[in-house]
């Protein structure tokens, strides 16, 4: 009987404790919950449409947009503009300068977001979801948040490279047998800077110089380089891990990547609200949704690494990844010196081909 009573107390304590913790943690959300209601009411008064300029794959974007509309049925349309990053940036800036504002949110590379921020195109927003985002993946001033992140790695075509040939370090790329057989997207400045810093400036410069002599073909974007890697046009690629995961596990293509490199430059993929968004409240709801756990699960299922602390990457390759040497790209510095760094990079590796 005593035992039962003790057990009862244990359970009661446990329940009480959970309740307490629950109320404390949900206490943090209570105001946000009220705020969300307000936001929803305000968003209902808007056009019911949302226009997003995005960088992610169409299939992922569509899944996110569909779930968002299910959650907020009064949003009738989420239109997504997906094109070459520079084209989107140029278009957004041209329209902003001409006083035409069609976009609600913009997702792009960190330097592009920094350029938009500097021109005053972006609005700051304190998302209630921000607390659960890895601090490395959001702007302190609230101008942008990363939806997901990715390391820059060495990828290879498994039909062409296998066994002992698979590189184990960045230095392995300098072997003469890889000359003319590698590709890399244009302007990999974040990777470039992280590598230089990790290797030490002198050694890093020597490495880059030797690498540039390997005749790496510069691709226009990430996807086209990976598509050519899968098709066998290249043996290896310096590229993003997520694309290789999508090609390997999503499409069954003969590609894989090296999961333990020192360093692995980590990029974020930030999204921000436009200052003159025609539907600012719907845009805020959309950002909240993209940063939510629900969206992070969709992101993870699409073989990306969510920026949320409580959702892990699901694709098999990420589980094998050595996380010890992940280094976030120095975005502020890159934006400030973008032209200089880009010239440096292009002098070594050339522009898009």
């Amino acid at each position, binding site marked *: 009987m005593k035992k039962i009573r003790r057990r009862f107390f244990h359970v009661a304590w446990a329940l009480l404790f959970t309740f307490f913790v629950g109320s404390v943690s949900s206490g943090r959300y209570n105001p946000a919950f009220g705020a969300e209601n307000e936001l929803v009411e305000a968003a209902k008064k808007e056009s019911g449409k949302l226009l997003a300029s995005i960088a992610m794959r*169409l299939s992922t974007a*569509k899944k996110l947009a569909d779930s968002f509309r299910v959650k907020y049925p009064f949003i009738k349309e989420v*239109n997504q503009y997906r094109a070459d990053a520079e084209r989107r940036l140029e278009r957004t800036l041209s329209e902003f300068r001409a006083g*035409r504002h069609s976009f609600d949110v913009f997702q792009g590379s960190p330097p592009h977001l920094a350029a938009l921020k500097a021109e005053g195109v972006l609005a700051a927003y304190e998302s209630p979801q921000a607390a659960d985002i890895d601090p490395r993946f959001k702007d302190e001033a609230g101008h942008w948040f990363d939806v997901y992140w990715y390391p820059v790695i060495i990828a290879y075509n498994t039909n062409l490279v296998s066994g002992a040939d698979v590189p184990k370090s960045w230095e392995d790329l300098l072997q003469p047998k890889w000359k003319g057989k590698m590709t890399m997207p244009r302007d990999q400045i974040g990777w470039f800077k992280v590598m230089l810093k990790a290797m030490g400036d002198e050694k890093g410069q020597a490495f880059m110089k030797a690498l540039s002599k390997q005749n790496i073909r510069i691709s226009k974007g990430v996807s086209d380089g990976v598509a050519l890697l899968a098709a066998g046009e*290249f043996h290896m690629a310096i590229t993003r891990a997520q694309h290789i995961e999508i090609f390997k596990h999503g499409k069954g293509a003969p590609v894989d990547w090296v999961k333990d490199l020192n360093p692995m430059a980590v990029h974020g993929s930030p999204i921000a609200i436009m200052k003159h968004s025609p539907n600012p409240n719907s845009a805020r709801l959309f950002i909240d949704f993209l940063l939510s756990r629900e969206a992070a699960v969709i992101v993870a299922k699409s073989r990306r690494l969510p920026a949320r602390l409580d959702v892990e990457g699901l694709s098999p390759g990420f589980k094998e990844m050595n996380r010890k040497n992940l280094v976030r790209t120095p975005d502020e510095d890159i934006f400030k010196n973008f032209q200089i760094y880009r010239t440096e990079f292009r002098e070594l590796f050339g522009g898009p*081909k």
Partner: protein
Amino acid sequence: MQRYLNSQIFILGGCSLLVFYLAALPIGTLLYGSFRSAPVMVAGGVFTIQNYVSAFFDQEAYYLAWNSVQFALGSSLLAFVIGTYLAWINERTNLPFKTTCSLMALLPLLIPGILSTIGWVFLLSPRIGVVNLALKNFLGLASGPFDVFSMWGMIWVQAVDIYPLAFLLMSAALRNMDPALEEASMAAGSGTITTLRRITLPIMRPSMIGVMLIMFVRAIEAFEVPAVVGIPGDIYVFTSKIYLATHRYPSDHGLAGAYAVNLLVICVAGVLLYQRLTRRQEQFATVTGKGYRPRVVDLGPWKYFHLALAVVIFSIGVVTPVFILIWASFIPYYGVPSAELIGKMSLENYMFILTYPEATKAFKNSFFLSVGSATSVMLVTSVIAWITVKSKIKGKGVLDAISFVPIAIPGIVLGISLMWVYLIVPIPIYGTIWILLVAYMTKYLPYGVRAASASMIQITSELEEASHACGGSWQQTFRKITLPLLTPGFLAGWIYISILALRELSTSILLYSTDSIVLSVLIFDLLDQAQYNWLAALGVLMILVLMAMALLAHKLGATMGIAR
């Protein structure tokens, strides 16, 4: 009578204003913008010739001009040779299966340039091109022999894209040639070769040069090949540079404007020269009312050789690029046909495209623009044609001339001009589908005028006079007499324009927004993201739609041979 005159003047005025608005306003804005120090939509610019200084005194400008000329000359000559050969065997020899052959020569007109260009990339890319790989393995070479990302690659792809136009124009020229002189030469004892050299070629020379000029203009204003093959190959021409100057960050609208004006001048000069040459051709009076049938060369057993050659040209020019697109549309990632990939074939790309909202939107928009521009152009141009052909109103020559101007405006130049117009003019159509409709109307105005006046000339004025005599007003006569009589020509023009509008890329790429995206732009965007398989599925669906339209046209008895 007074009322009748008034309405005539009102209509002439209205048409002139509309045509002026469509054709002259963009060119004016382009010229203005090219002399501004800041983009036209930004306040604070001043007048400057700096854009032209940097366009003319920069080494890059000469490199661009040289590339453009090489590209246009090479592809127009090659297209001319292919087109003329096909026209000759079709019009002047006893080739079997002539109808099928002319259909084969015209079919490439239906394949959007962006799709055939992508098809050629899949075929001739240095390492994954199917043709390259086949040859590499067959001949035991270290690498594939072809590189599509080169000047020769660009010339080849462009030539294959435009040879049907050379075929059409040269067929017409050969058909209209009076064979009497040739017969006289033969009668005087000259052989076939001598006759060809001393009679046929000199007679044909003006129209041949004219056709080459038009091909040159078509090639130098082309956008698809320079963008898809030229940019990755690091070979830039005017059109791709204008596109990049407005779409890369930071952009340079002034420089784009200056290059656009350069390109415009080249094209206008080409078109004017063409018109002069074809006018002179009329002076030779080879096209007469005399009934004659051109002399037919008996090819003997060689006719089968020429038939086979025509089939080979068709297979290389159309079948292979389309086949490779079909292949790509069924596989999960691009690769050369292999047992491994054949096992992975599925309809997944089609499923994605059919459920993808942007694609549905693009289909709707393209359909709307195609039908909308064809209808409005044909309505406007039948009035214009009535004025220029039938009426005796003063100043009708000017109307005819202005309505023909857009033929010389390259698509990309029209795009940048209209973008500027509607960024500064307070007509709120920028970023909507209406700016595209305006653009398409401008672009296809000359085609409509051609089609409408061609059929207008064939209608005698007796019926209209009878209507007037019975008390019909001008509008009543036009609606009840002229328009119904025009219907066959009207329909032919309508279908031709709607097909052209569905393929349009170079203007739309500068003017579209997410709401007004069209099929060709969506394909271009998908290419940008390297989504080769989705774009292949979309492309195959698009070709099916175009084929259905052409088939419908055929059923309706319209011919496709009214280009220009």
